């Protein structure tokens, strides 16, 4: 089926609009072979010394999670800072924080794919990896938060000795399905996107006689040969996956927000939560993408593939979603006043001026003020500054979840039941360690898998267009 040429309006002949050049997605006119060599070279080369150092540090940090969890399981979750009225403290903050980070990966791979934003190709692979590893870190918290982790399988609809099934009216049960579907589909999407690149690696290892590695990558490449008939099915499948991952990512954080919004707690029971949570998730996720990609770009000299244009795009999305989050904060305050509900009104005054005011103002300054700096081109062009600002975004979004959960729970309806939440050392260890878990997984990814979608990158180069300069009609 040939593609129909779009009709050209007659007026264009008279007005002669200027042709605005599109920014190059791969700079310096790099060839196909250069792209292959660049990305595969990272996997094929000798393990760099910095990698071993980072890996060792990441493993050490990950031990904190192992220690924290082991202690909590051995002694009981009384070792955490949870006390009535705050029974949803630290682990749920961390769960929402990590799951939110994952969302930018799916946004880049799915939503930007549907919107035909070709700049996604150089960052989507790493962003999807980030999604999966973030979901792994997120999953740790609710599983251990159930208290008796050996009963965590009760969350799934499996026959158990009490003959009771899960209660499907609860958003917490919806969350089980949303998050496990999200994790599974993210892995599938990532893997399918990687099959052609694994085939490239297989062929390269085979041609230099490294049989074991050729077999290993060949096993996962599943015999992919780059057949055009195969590409036709592949591209269709990829498009459908993008099409279903888009409503998936929106639904996951909507359901996470339902965990709060469906309750009656002041500050939680609001209809703005689903869009506000989704915007916040994408905001935090782009913060993390910038945090990860900028060092990667510098270490592996990927400036021709992750260009200034890519950084600009990411900063602008961070700015847009950050502004949405800022709008949501303002709107929450307005509705709290407008609703004339004294509990709702008190909660928001309490957030800004109560015992957790310090957390609230950290959140506001990181999430509302920081991204506004991305309006300036000079800021977006200063890679170091962008990286530092992305750290503030991550910090601010963690505090957002902390503020939402802790301020609402510590002071709800009856002053007689008010309290104050402080994390214990075990809480802090467990959370701190998840950065190690995440880093270990991410370091393994950049060492052993193609960090960029090689085939997709080739497809966005000028020479990939069969009609470019060939005068094809």
């Amino acid at each position, binding site marked *: 089926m040939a593609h129909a040429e779009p009709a050209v309006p007659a007026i264009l002949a008279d007005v002669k609009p200027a042709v605005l050049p599109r920014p190059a997605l791969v700079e310096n006119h790099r060839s196909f072979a250069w792209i292959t060599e660049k990305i595969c070279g990272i996997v094929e080369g000798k393990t760099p010394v910095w990698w071993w150092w980072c890996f060792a540090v990441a493993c050490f940090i990950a031990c904190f999670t192992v220690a924290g969890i082991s202690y909590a399981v051995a002694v009981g979750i009384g070792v955490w800072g949870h006390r009535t009225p705050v029974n949803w403290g630290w682990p749920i903050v961390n769960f929402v924080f990590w799951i939110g980070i994952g969302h930018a990966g799916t946004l880049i791979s799915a939503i930007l794919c549907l919107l035909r934003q070709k700049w996604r190709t150089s960052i989507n692979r790493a962003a999807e990896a980030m999604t999966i590893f973030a979901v792994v870190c997120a999953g740790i918290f609710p599983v251990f938060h159930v208290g008796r982790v050996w009963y965590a399988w009760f969350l799934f609809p499996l026959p158990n000795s009490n003959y009771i099934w899960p209660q499907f009216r609860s958003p917490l*049960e919806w969350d089980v399905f949303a998050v496990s579907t999200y994790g599974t589909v993210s892995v599938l999407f990532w893997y399918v996107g990687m099959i052609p690149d694994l085939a490239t690696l297989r062929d390269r290892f085979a041609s230099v006689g490294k049989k074991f590695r050729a077999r290993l990558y060949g096993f996962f490449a599943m015999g*992919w040969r780059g057949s055009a008939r195969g590409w036709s099915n592949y591209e269709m499948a990829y498009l459908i996956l993008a099409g279903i991952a888009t409503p998936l990512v929106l639904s996951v954080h909507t359901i996470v927000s339902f965990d709060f919004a469906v309750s009656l707690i002041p500050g939680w029971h609001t209809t703005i939560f689903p869009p506000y949570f989704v915007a916040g998730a994408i905001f935090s996720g782009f913060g993390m993408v910038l945090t990860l990609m900028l060092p990667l770009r510098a270490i592996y000299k990927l400036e021709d593939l992750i260009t200034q244009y890519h950084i600009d795009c990411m900063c602008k999305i961070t700015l847009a979603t950050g502004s949405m989050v800022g709008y949501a904060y303002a709107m929450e305050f307005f509705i709290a006043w407008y609703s004339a509900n004294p509990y709702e009104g008190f909660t928001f005054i309490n957030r800004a001026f109560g015992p957790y005011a310090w957390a609230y103002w950290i959140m506001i300054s990181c999430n509302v003020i920081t991204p506004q700096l991305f309006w300036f081109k000079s800021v977006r062009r200063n890679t170091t500054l962008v990286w530092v600002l992305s750290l503030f975004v991550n910090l601010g979004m963690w505090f957002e979840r902390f503020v939402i959960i802790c301020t609402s729970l510590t002071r709800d309806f009856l002053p007689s039941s008010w309290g104050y939440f402080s994390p214990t050392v075990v809480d802090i260890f467990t959370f701190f360690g998840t950065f190690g878990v995440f880093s270990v997984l991410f370091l393994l990814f950049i060492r052993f898998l193609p960090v960029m979608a090689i085939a997709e990158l080739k497809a966005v180069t000028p020479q990939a267009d*069969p009609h470019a300069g060939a005068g094809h009609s």
Partner: protein
Amino acid sequence: MPEPKYGLIATFATTAEIYHAAEAVRDAGYRNWDCITPMPVHGLDGAMGVRRSIVPRISLAGGITGFCTGMSMIFYMNGFDYRLTVGGKPFFSPLYAFPVSYELTILFTAFATIGGMFFLNGLTKLYHPVLKYENIRRGMDDLFFLVIEASDPRFHAINTRALLEEIGGRDITELEA
């Protein structure tokens, strides 16, 4: 010249070359042939006369299965096998069953899409005759190939080779089965 066992393979250097070659082979009426490209070439399926992929149908079947699985699972568990009274509400309502069914729709669609793609592409493929061609490894790097199979009714050892030469194919080689 002996009849080649699997077919003929020709090499092309650019996307424009493989695109026009594919158009020529399609117009010559061949059926059992394929291109090998390191990335999806925009419009090549059209130039080859490949019909629109049927993966979406498989995906749709997967999605419907997922939705029905979710709804019927929740009806069976909460509305039939062990009825739970929660807030005096009906034992089953499609409204509260919707979020989980929605997630299962997506989950099953994803598996059906990928399974369908694997099935239609014949993956996992342990062997293919083109793999004996030494240069094929660059087919996942920077070269483009066009393979016409000997099983094609129009295949002719001399004429097909002439066609490939005419459309600009280089290093035309016979492939063993």
